[in-house]
Structures are given as C-alpha cells and as structure tokens.
C-alpha cells in the first residue's frame, strides 16, 4: 500500500503515522459532534411536539373533569307528581318529576312569568335532575309531601360558562349560547351559593348521552377493556405458540419461508381490511352479535398476531444458542429446552411485542367501525357479547358533536385513553422486570 522505504521487509512503524492520524482526528471529532447535535436536535423537536400535543389536550380536556351542581329546593307534592301516599315503587318510578323540577325552578325565580322566559329558565338545569330526585324519593318514600334541597347537575352550557369563571369576568368566555337573562339568573344563583364546582364523577360513571353533562366514558372504557381482554387472550397464546413453533421446531424449508413472508405481509395489511373480514366472516357467516367486544377482540387479534409473532421470533432468536445446547446436552427434550430455558429468557422481548401490538389495537378505530362498534352506547357493557364501543370510537363520536361541552369531553376521553395506555405499559414494564434475568 505504502511506498517502499529503505527497509521494506522489516516491520517497522511509519515515522509520520502520528501526524497523519492527528490530521484526520479533528475531522472525525467534528463529524461526531455534528452527529450528536443532529440527534439532540431531533429529540428536542420531538419532545417539543409531544409537549405541545399533551399540553393542548390537557388544557382542553381538564375542564371536563369538573362538573357544575346546582342546589334546588323541591317540594315533593303528590299532586304534581301524580302519586298517592303509600304508592308502590313502580308508581313512584313513573311519577311526573319533569313538572316537579320545572315547578321548583319557577319557585326560585317567581318573577318569571312569560312562557319563553320560563323555557329559558328550565334550560339551566340538566334533565338528569329528574332522575336524581326520583332516586331520592324512591329510596325514602316517606319524604312525599316534604320539601327537600338537592344538588343536581347544571346544564352543560351553564356549566361551561360557570366553570371558566366567566360569571365574574365575561372576557373569559366569549362564545356562549346562554342568553343575558340566563346569565343574570346564574349570577343570582351564584350569589345565593347555589352553584358549586365538583370533581366530575358522572364522567366516569355514565355511558354516552345526548346531553353533554350526563355523557360519560364508562361504557367506552369497559368496551375497550373487554375488547382488549379478548384480543390479548386470543393473540398472545396463539402468537407465542406460532413463534416458538416456527423458531424452534419447524424445519427450514420452502413452506416455512412462505409462512414467514406471509406473516410479515400480514403485519402491513391496512386494518380496515381486517374489519371487512370480521364483518363477512364472524358476523355474517358465524352470526356473532354485532357491535360486541367479542367480535372486536377477534378482529383486533388478527391484526395484532403478526406484530406479536414477529417480536416473539426476534426475542427467541436473541437467546444465545449455548443455552439450548446446555439443555439438550443434559438430556432435556426440545420442548423442555424451550419452556425451561429459552422462553423465560425471551419473555421480556415477547412482552414488549405484545404491548406494542395491544397498544395498536387499543387505538384502532377503522376495523371496529366495520363491525358496528360505532353505536351510541348508553348502557355499560358487562359481558363480551353486549353491544359496546371503544375509547377511540367514542373520541371520534364526540369530536363530531356540535355542543361545546363535547369538545372538552373529546380531549378528556383522549386523556383517559392515554392513561389506559400508560397503565398498560407500566404493567408490561413491571412484568418485564419480573422476568428479566441475566445470562
């Protein structure tokens, strides 16, 4: 390579090599410095976007965790309710609470006489007030005829207005559908101490509702949990078994190559295709119930399977072959080698893959739309065959609603989705730590 010097056949260091290396050194360090800067810049940028995203969701979503209650005095008179003393629970349930609430609202502002004004007044209270009073009366039927004070939900428009502190400072909320008259009433209520903010438990107790103040995430959350449970129970064992078979048992031939290519391709199939498949096969052919977590879970596990299989195979491959040799050398059967030695070492990697797959499944909407999990679900699903929806679909539905209060609920639902994801990840980290062992 180099010019022959006086002693060509002797192995001697080049005299000038130090200076040559020195010259290139500065360049090499500069390149490294540049690369580090690019890396740091990239991370800073992605962090900035993440903060921006989370920040905006938090700002928009946090108000949804506060709800406004209104104190009303209700006279449970049997005439308005249309029930007699000693009425059965059935009769109490069917009584006319609607008029009762209206009457109580009129009672608070006796000066309101006009029909239109009355209507506006009624709008300040949520329709759920009727149920609240009904439940209270049904629990204590002896209260019939008495006047009771109850905190009931305020209507969402009033709630949005009040929560932002716009009563004191109108500049805080420029857009409101409340009329001047309604705002004046609200101020009066506030002065009388009849309005208060509370942590929004309704949001976590209820299913979806047309009335924003009564709409909750519970149904979608349960739907997501049930769907993911099915997904996990189906995809995890099948995927791990597949990966183990392909990696540890199957002969290397054209068939296994073909299967491998197909699994990799499957991972790239758009998710909506799985939805179509689910609709055609599970609902139309096997006649499983529509909108049910069981079908959603099956469809999503089809989608997660390739992800988990690929990750599991990589994890199995990473286990050093010397461990397998040690096991076989002692006379362990192939299955014993795998279950006793290889699988425990591969478990952390397999769990990581599973979490990635499940996280994808959790955020998936398109295939679930195809199988009808986009329904308006009020009742909390309790089994995998009940009609249900899932968190991302709920986000999608609420984002489409015109009411201002649904806007904040959309963000709040996203927050719940994120928390769900974090909990899932934390569980995975915990399990991984549990399984992680050095070798």
């Amino acid at each position, binding site marked *: 390579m180099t010019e022959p010097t006086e002693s060509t056949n002797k192995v001697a260091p080049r005299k000038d090599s130090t200076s040559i290396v020195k010259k290139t050194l500065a360049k090499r360090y500069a390149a490294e410095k540049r690369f580090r800067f690019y890396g740091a810049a990239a991370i800073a940028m992605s962090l900035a976007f993440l903060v921006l995203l989370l920040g905006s969701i938090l700002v928009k979503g946090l108000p949804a965790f506060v709800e406004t209650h209104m104190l009303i005095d209700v006279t449970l008179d049997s005439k308005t309710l249309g029930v007699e003393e000693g009425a059965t629970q059935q009769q109490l349930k069917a009584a006319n609470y609607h008029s009762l609430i209206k009457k109580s609202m009129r009672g608070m502002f006796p000066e309101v006489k006009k029909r239109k004004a009355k209507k506006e007044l009624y709008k300040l209270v949520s329709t759920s007030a009727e149920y609240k009073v009904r439940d209270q009366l049904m629990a204590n039927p002896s209260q019939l005829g008495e006047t009771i004070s109850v905190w009931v939900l305020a209507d969402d428009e009033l709630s949005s207005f009040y929560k932002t502190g716009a009563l004191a400072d109108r500049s805080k909320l420029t857009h409101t559908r409340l009329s001047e008259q309604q705002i004046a009433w609200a101020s009066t209520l506030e002065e009388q101490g009849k309005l208060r903010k509370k942590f929004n438990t309704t949001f976590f107790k209820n299913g979806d509702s047309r009335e924003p103040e009564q709409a909750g995430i519970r149904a979608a959350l349960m739907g997501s949990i049930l769907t993911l449970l099915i997904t996990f129970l189906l995809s995890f064992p099948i995927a791990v078994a597949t990966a183990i078979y392909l990696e540890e048992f199957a*002969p*290397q031939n054209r068939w296994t190559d073909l299967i491998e290519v197909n699994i990799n391709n499957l991972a790239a199939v758009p998710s909506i295709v799985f939805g179509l498949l689910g609709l055609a096969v599970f609902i139309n052919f096997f006649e499983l119930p529509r909108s049910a977590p069981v079908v959603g879970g099956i469809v999503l596990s089809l989608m997660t399977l390739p992800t988990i299989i690929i990750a599991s195979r990589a994890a199995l491959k990473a286990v*050093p072959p*010397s*461990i*397998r*040799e*040690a*096991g*076989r*050398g*002692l*006379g*362990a*059967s192939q299955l*014993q080698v795998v279950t*006793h*030695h290889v699988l*425990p*070492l591969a478990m952390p990697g397999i769990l990581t893959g599973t979490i990635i797959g499940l996280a994808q499944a959790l955020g998936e909407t398109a295939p679930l739309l195809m199988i009808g999990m986009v329904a308006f679900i009020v009742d909390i699903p309790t089994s995998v065959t009940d009609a249900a929806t899932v968190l991302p679909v709920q986000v999608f539905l609420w984002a489409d609603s015109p009411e201002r209060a649904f806007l904040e609920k959309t963000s709040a639902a996203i927050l719940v989705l994120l928390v769900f994801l974090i909990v899932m990840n934390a569980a995975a980290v915990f399990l991984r730590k549990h399984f992680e*062992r*050095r*070798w």
Partner: protein
Amino acid sequence: MNTKSNTSAASDAFDNLKETVGVVTVDDPKMSARNVDVFYGEKQAIYDVSLDIANNEVIAMIGPSGCGKSTFLRCLNRMNDSIPTCRVTGEMSLDGEDLYGAGLDPVLLRARVGMVFQKPNPFAKSIYDNVAYGPRIHGLASNRAELDDIVISSLQKAGLHEEVQDRLDAPGTSLSGGQQQRLCIARTIAVSPEVILMDEPCSALDPIATARIEELIDELRENYAIAIVTHSMQQAARVSQRTAYFHLGKLVEVGSTNNIFTNPRHELTENYITGRFG
C-alpha cells in the same frame, strides 16, 4: 490446504494416509465408532474415522483447528442432530447399542453421555437449580432431600462446593468463568452419565482454574469414560491416557499418550506435537 505450504513431505504423507496408525480398538469399549463419515451439506468434515472410548480412561483428541474434533465429539451424543445439514454415516455405539439406530433415543443417550462445552454456559437459574435441573427432568430424585444430596455431592465432585455452599441461591451467571465451568461439570455429573465429553473445557480459563479442572478430570476418571478435546498438548499429556490425533477430518494416529508424545509414529503427528504446524 495449509499443510502444502508448510512441508510437501507432510502433504504427501497426508495424501497417502489410508489407515489410522496405531490401535483404535480397546478391550470392552464403552463407546465405539466405526468408519464414521460426517457431512455438513456437501462438505465432508470427517473421513472414515474408527475409534473406541474405554471405561475409566481419558482419551484426548488433538489436532489443528478445523480438523473435526468437535464434530466427532458432538456425534458421540448426537448434539449434531440440531444442525439440519449435518449427516452422519457409519456406526457408532454405546455399550454395543447403535446410537443412530431406532433403538436408542437421543434424549436418553444424552442423559448417559454428558457434555461440557468450550464456553461455560450455565442456565439463567440459581446455582442449586443449575445442578438440580438434570435430576429433576429425569426424575432421579424422589424427594427434596435426595435432590439436595445429588446437588451437594455433584458440587463436591466438581470441586465447587466449598466456594458456593453459602450462596446456592445466587444466579449461576454470577460466578467467575472458572467457577461457571466447574458448575457446568457439576451439572453434567448430577445426571450420573456413563461418559463425559468435554470440548476444550479449559480454553477460557486461567492456569489455576485449569489445574483445578484437570485435577477434577483425573478424579472423575475412576467412575466415568471421558473424552476431551484440547488445543493444549501439555494438557493432553497431563490428563489423558490415550491420545488421538486428527488432521483435516481424518484420524491420523491413536496410541497411549506416552507413546504419542515421546515417540509419534506418523510424520503428521510428529510435526504437530513438535509445533511445526497447527
């Protein structure tokens, strides 16, 4: 062929090699191989090797790198089964039972013919569980006390017990390299094999640990048949009673260790042990 560049005489000697020099058989062999050829796909790695392994004796297998020592050793307990391209022809037997025939199950074979590998490879388990693993899967102990006995006596035989007796719950990987290798030997002994195969068991160890293991091999000889592959001729001379010299897949010479090292009969053997190539 690296031999050609060394001495043309040696190369001729190799080309003319028809038969192994020395006596390959022993009386009452524990294991025996007859006319064994091993192929990796198209490539032949072992050519027509016949060799007996005797009871209560250590046989050392030496030879230049890539000459097929490991391949031959791994055939003796069918570890090569897991290499899809590997094909073995000829006859191999343990106590007269054909290894590759239908009669002997590979799992049972490996319980009877244990193996210690070049690199220590303890399981990701505690020291105790490493040793107890073999007896457990084979059901050699009927209760915990028996298992404890097996573990402790195996560790004692491997000369590791004193060092680890107060931390049997520590992971096997937390030991030093030499201790790990002795743990692997203890693990192998715990299954009570009849033959122990060792593939360069000391190549990753310092002289003290090596001496420790050599001592151990010498003690184990009383009860086992042992075959050891080594690159160290001193080691072969120290631990073995018979030595087999392999060269490019052929078994060149077999004889008592004494004779091989003091009076090699084949030119290739002489070249190797005098350090002219290898």
